[in-house]
């Protein structure tokens, strides 16, 4: 808790992180209050008059209408729910698996650890998107299947990151002391090592949400999204298939910009968090000393502070 508060104190002084967080929360807000914000029911075809299909924006329909006469803005607002659900649930899954694998491989090591790392290396070289395409097209389309596939394939990087951290933490004094007074492996992992890697995992989790959102939209764009839900990727798929010849930019651009908006927000937030929690050096020998002050004021090098305590 103490740690998280300290991270927040640094984080709130970083404009990039704050802007990113605001971008994310604007989408979260839209997703939660979708029924109140959307001017129309996204599934209802408003007009069946042929000239209203793909009608350009006007006062009643701020982003025009799609090829079935539905309101684009309302679909966009409801689409936020799909993207965020996929992003957060899939990311939670891959963070959970990756952290578990990383902790076991790093702390326990041995034959099990080796086997886990070989599995990680194996998944790391398998091309993700083609594999997802193959699995979903065989297994069938569906929201939970997409979430499952993205979560199951996205944990490798986190596992490696956690493992490398655990390997160095394992040899530190407080772990050795805990072991000396007879603490078991499980207790050491959960009580002493996990809290140390948690900040890094959180930064990684934020980045992985954006990865999951982009993966979902790619799958949907390629025609493998959940057929019962309109996600941003699926809107782009429809728009690309049916509206590009008519240059219906009001149908093509908004869902794409929505994806970019939320993923860039997450990336800005995640990168800032990563810079705060990653104990790497933040300055170098060709560094212009004029900027040094700002950096040091912004970031207290955690690694050094901890090292001094030991």
């Amino acid at each position: 808790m103490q740690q998280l508060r300290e991270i927040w104190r640094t984080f709130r002084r970083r404009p990039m992180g704050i802007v990113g967080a605001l971008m994310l929360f604007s989408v979260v807000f839209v997703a939660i209050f979708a029924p109140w914000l959307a001017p129309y029911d996204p599934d209802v075809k408003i007009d069946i008059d042929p000239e209203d299909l793909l009608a350009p924006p006007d006062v009643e329909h701020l982003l025009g209408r799609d090829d079935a006469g539905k309101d684009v803005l309302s679909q966009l607002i409801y689409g936020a729910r799909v993207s965020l659900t996929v992003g957060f649930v899939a990311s939670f899954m891959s963070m959970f698996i990756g952290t578990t694998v990383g902790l076991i491989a790093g702390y326990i090591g041995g034959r099990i650890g080796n086997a886990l790392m070989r599995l990680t290396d194996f998944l790391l070289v398998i091309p993700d998107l083609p594999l997802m395409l193959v699995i979903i097209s065989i297994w069938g389309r569906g929201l939970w299947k997409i979430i499952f596939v993205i979560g199951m394939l996205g944990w490798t990087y986190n596992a490696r990151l956690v493992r490398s951290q655990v390997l160095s933490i394992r040899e530190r004094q407080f772990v050795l002391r805990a072991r000396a007074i007879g603490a078991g492996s499980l207790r050491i992992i959960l009580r002493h090592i996990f809290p140390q890697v948690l900040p890094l995992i959180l930064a990684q989790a934020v980045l992985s949400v954006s990865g999951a959102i982009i993966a979902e939209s790619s799958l949907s764009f390629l025609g493998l999204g959940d057929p019962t839900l309109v996600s941003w990727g699926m809107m782009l798929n429809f728009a690309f298939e049916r509206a590009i010849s008519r240059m219906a930019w009001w149908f093509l651009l908004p869902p794409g910009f929505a994806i970019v908006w939320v993923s860039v927000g997450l990336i800005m937030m995640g990168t800032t968090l990563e810079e705060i929690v990653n104990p790497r050096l933040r300055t170098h020998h060709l560094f212009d000393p004029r900027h040094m002050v700002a950096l040091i004021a912004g970031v207290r090098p955690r690694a050094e502070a901890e090292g001094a305590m030991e």
Partner: protein
Amino acid sequence: MQRSDYLIRRVFFALATLVVVIGFNFFLFRILPGDPIKSIARSPRLTREAREKLRVDFGLDKPVFFDGERLRKGDVLGAFDTQFTAYVRALLHGNLGISYRSRRDVAEVLAERVWRTVVLVAGAETLALLFGVVLGLVSAWRRGTRLEMTILLWALISWGLPNFFLGIILLLLARGHLPVGGMATPGLKPEHGLAYWADVGRHLILPTLTMAIVYTSSYVLIMRSSVVEVLSEDYILTAKAKGLNTFQILRDHALKNAMLPMVTMVALNLAYTVGGAIQVETVFSWPGIGRLMYDSVQLRDYPILQGTFLLLALSVIVANLLADLLYSVLDPRVKAE
């Protein structure tokens, strides 16, 4: 550990990965619902006998993986006369099956299209690497300045940009100025010589640019953190103390050492790049492996899908092995963990 040990381990790992991919590829497509014979011969008038004959011809009467019955009778070799061994044997002969739709040999279709994707990916990777290294170096050196923030922000935005959406934007912008779909203007044939290839080149511009822009971002970010790390090493301080100017330090001391992690990154990135190729080829109708994958997903053409996936996985595995080997040549300190 000896370097040869390291190399042997890497080769062994690559082979093991390949075996798992082949096994996975076999089983995944085996759990498909429906009768594969019906997918090839759709006619409802096909007699039971004819269907049975097809089943035997394709080896589908054999057990899937392992014949326990025959092993118990002492026929060890016969126990492995199964669909899986038939599949592996066919693979080794370069036989990937026949397309459900076009009835063409899958290997033949892939061979015809693979170069188009190779050209696209190679061009995009080269551009991305070039820009990524330069921008990453500059942004690390000018750390804390407005220039770094600009490069960083731009890299972060293009990192969050899906390939297919950037493709659509460029397509809308370039419409009327550049060809936006296909590989060549209809009517133009390879026999036209130079005019044809120039036309193909013009069709390549947009897809290459799309992929290059998206992939530059990850190289910028990696190069930047790599250079920052290198610049904080003591030998940079030594170089500075010797009186070398900034350009010399960057070129002779920072660049070379910071490039090392990039070798691994290019190979690892390839796993993402082929995914990007599917999206970009779909947007621009570039008739390569990626577009083939998209089409076969729409048409449920599983043999093509299976072959394409195998080819993509194989090329990424080989690229990673090559990167490992190259890395151990470039950096003599390399040892296995």
